[in-house]
């Protein structure tokens, strides 16, 4: 987006209230009526979304919270066997759940340290004028369009120890000693899963960065170059800071995605071998639908929810504050 168009977008938004004021501002009764009517309209418009939100989001959360303090196999009516916080103490004594937390952390760190820089690099590369640029953009974005299940099925074949492409390719370039059983080896399975995750999601982050990069006015970069800044300096002091909001959002999505990771891993490994690739969501699923310990599974989901919530709120409060500030103060101005 160029600066001229940006300004053009903002103008009507500022002009609107000024124009609206004389119409209803004259007599107070009219204004009240107008406001009431607006309130009714707003309520009416909000109602469907609100009802859906309450029914499909709030009620299940509350129900899960309720079920999490019971020992319940999920059969027949409501739970009755109240156990207090037993499910939670059990969870934090279970090596599998503690392992989930550790593995989640590893995935988050790997995502932030490898996947996002990779996406950023590619985005900057693809921002340069070059032949076939649109094709490459499409190519790198394509994996994101595939569903998780298809991706996972694809990669189970890719990583197959007997006839998978991964080992074939390694032996083709003379790196047989690097060939591995990938998903079958408890010590390497997490990295295999991470490779798949990266393949699947880097395109999405790349598109985010690409969009963010195009929002940076060329004038700024030109100015920096005129002042004699080298390519690295331009990147470090102009591009990167101005990409800040995009990077912060992309990191946020990446972390939340890693916390909730389920379908990809489920189809790839079902959490195995011997829990080596299990995530919180998979543990929850196996307890809820495999062992019919719905109370315990609910407790896991509550903890997952709390972790996500605390992270999301903390991130909003401390990291995204600068990005959201503009929007909020803008609203205040209008009022």
């Amino acid at each position: 987006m160029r600066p001229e168009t940006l300004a053009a977008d903002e103008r009507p938004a500022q002009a609107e209230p000024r124009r609206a004021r004389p119409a209803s501002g004259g007599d107070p009764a009219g204004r009240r009526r107008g406001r009431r009517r607006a309130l009714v309209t707003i309520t009416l418009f909000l109602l469907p979304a609100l009802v859906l939100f309450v029914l499909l989001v709030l009620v299940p959360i509350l129900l899960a919270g309720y079920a999490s303090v019971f020992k319940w196999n999920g059969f027949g009516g409501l739970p009755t066997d109240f156990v207090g916080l037993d499910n939670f103490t059990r969870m934090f004594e279970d090596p599998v759940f503690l392992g989930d937390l550790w593995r989640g952390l590893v995935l988050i760190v790997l995502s932030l340290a490898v996947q996002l820089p990779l996406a950023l690099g590619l985005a900057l590369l693809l921002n340069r004028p070059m032949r076939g640029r649109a094709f490459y953009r499409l190519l790198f974005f394509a994996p994101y369009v595939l569903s998780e299940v298809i991706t996972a099925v694809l990669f189970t074949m890719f990583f197959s120890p007997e006839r998978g492409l991964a080992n074939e390719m390694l032996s083709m370039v003379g790196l047989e000693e690097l060939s591995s059983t990938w998903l079958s080896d408890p010590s390497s399975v997490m990295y295999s899963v991470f490779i798949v995750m990266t393949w699947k999601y880097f395109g999405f982050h790349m598109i985010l960065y690409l969009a963010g990069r195009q929002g940076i006015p060329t004038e700024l970069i030109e100015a920096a170059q005129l002042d004699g800044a080298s390519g690295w300096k331009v990147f470090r002091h102009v591009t990167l800071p101005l990409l800040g909001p995009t990077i912060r959002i992309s990191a946020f999505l990446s972390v939340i995605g890693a916390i909730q990771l389920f379908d990809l891993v489920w189809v790839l490994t079902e959490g195995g071998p011997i829990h080596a690739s299990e995530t919180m969501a998979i543990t929850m699923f196996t307890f809820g639908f495999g062992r019919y310990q719905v109370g315990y599974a609910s407790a896991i989901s509550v903890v997952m929810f709390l972790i996500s919530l605390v992270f999301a709120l903390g991130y909003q409060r401390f990291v995204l504050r600068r990005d959201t500030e503009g929007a909020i103060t803008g609203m205040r101005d209008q009022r």
Partner: protein
Amino acid sequence: MKSFNRRSAVTMAAAALLLAGCGGGSGGAGADGGASSGGKVTVEWWSIHNIEPMLGVWKGLVKEYEAQHPNVTIKMNAMNVENFKSKLTTVTQSGKAPHLFHTWGGGVLAQQVEAGLVKDLTADIAPWSGTLSPVALQSYQVDGKTYGVPHDIGMVGFWYNKKLFAKAGIDAPPATWTEFLDDVKKLKAAGIAPIALAGKAKWPGHYYWAYLAMRVAGLDALKQAAETKSFENPDFVTAGRKLKELVDLQPFQQGFLGADYDKPDGQAAAIGNGKAAMELMGQWAPSVQRDTSTDLGEDLGFFPFPAVEGGKGTATDAFGGGGGIAVGADAPPEAVDFLRFISQPDNHRKGVKTGAIFPAVKGTEDAVTDRHAKLVTESLSKATGYQLYLDQAYPPAVGQQVNDSVAELIAGSKTPEQVVADITTAAKSE
């Protein structure tokens, strides 16, 4: 502004539709029937036979029954096993069950019974339950009462490639565990992967521990463990050690820990493709081999799990399971009558003839025509005792723990003692 209005109207309409959909969905569990004979009755049936040949057989029987009873409509809802399990779990949480639904018996059925979801059929089927195979029926009995009608019963045993055995110089299938281990060594020496195992799926691994526990400790010990909720029996540790002996020979195919059962490079395909010499699997093994790779035909043999020297169990005790149908607590009497209808020998034969299910009704063994199916039926007819799959017989939490712990034993991360301790902990927490 106008277009904005219209759009929100559409959104609202869509929301309303969605809400209506939700309401309809939760009421659609189908347990609100119960209108008894005379008027129109609809019986809802959740089945797991969503593919041919059984889907066609059931549909044919439904049509026939509906023709004889014009007031009855049987609504068959066939889905794959995973869907069925999660859907049933969701529905039963509301305290309702479909009129007729598939069951494997054992611990899950017992939990459903305890929750009051399942009808006690003991009296209703008494006039004709004598025609059912008693071995098949016992998996659906809880505290002496019958809660399901079987339509399939099989057993687990070793399916082996005769050619590969001959190549390794083995002339007869092993009868004892020592012989079995010797044969594994011979196969390895001949450069053949002795055993195919689906480590990702876990349940195939538990067969080894279960059979060894049956042979070493005996059927009664397994039953008693479930009742006392303690598996702290030295015999179960011995069973684990025997399995460890096998695992230490590294008998499984490359990358078995991540292998599926029924995928193109999974356990079944490894046998079909001649990549491994044997697998411990149920009666369906030949058909899955055929579906994922090739049919070994004449070369595929079957032998029962070997005896363990000095063990308390009988070498002819069989391990396995089948399938049955349970009746929801508030189902109309027509539901039970339909079970009577499909259990009539002639109607049962129709399914058995396809080779997809195995005789659960007395006197229908003659309908078994398939070469491999005959091997299983023959072996099963000699069975002196029967144990349902442990991950089915025990409450789900215990059964899954058995699967998990045995998988850990096979992967080498748990000792036989830890396996027994972990299963006991799970049993105690139930």
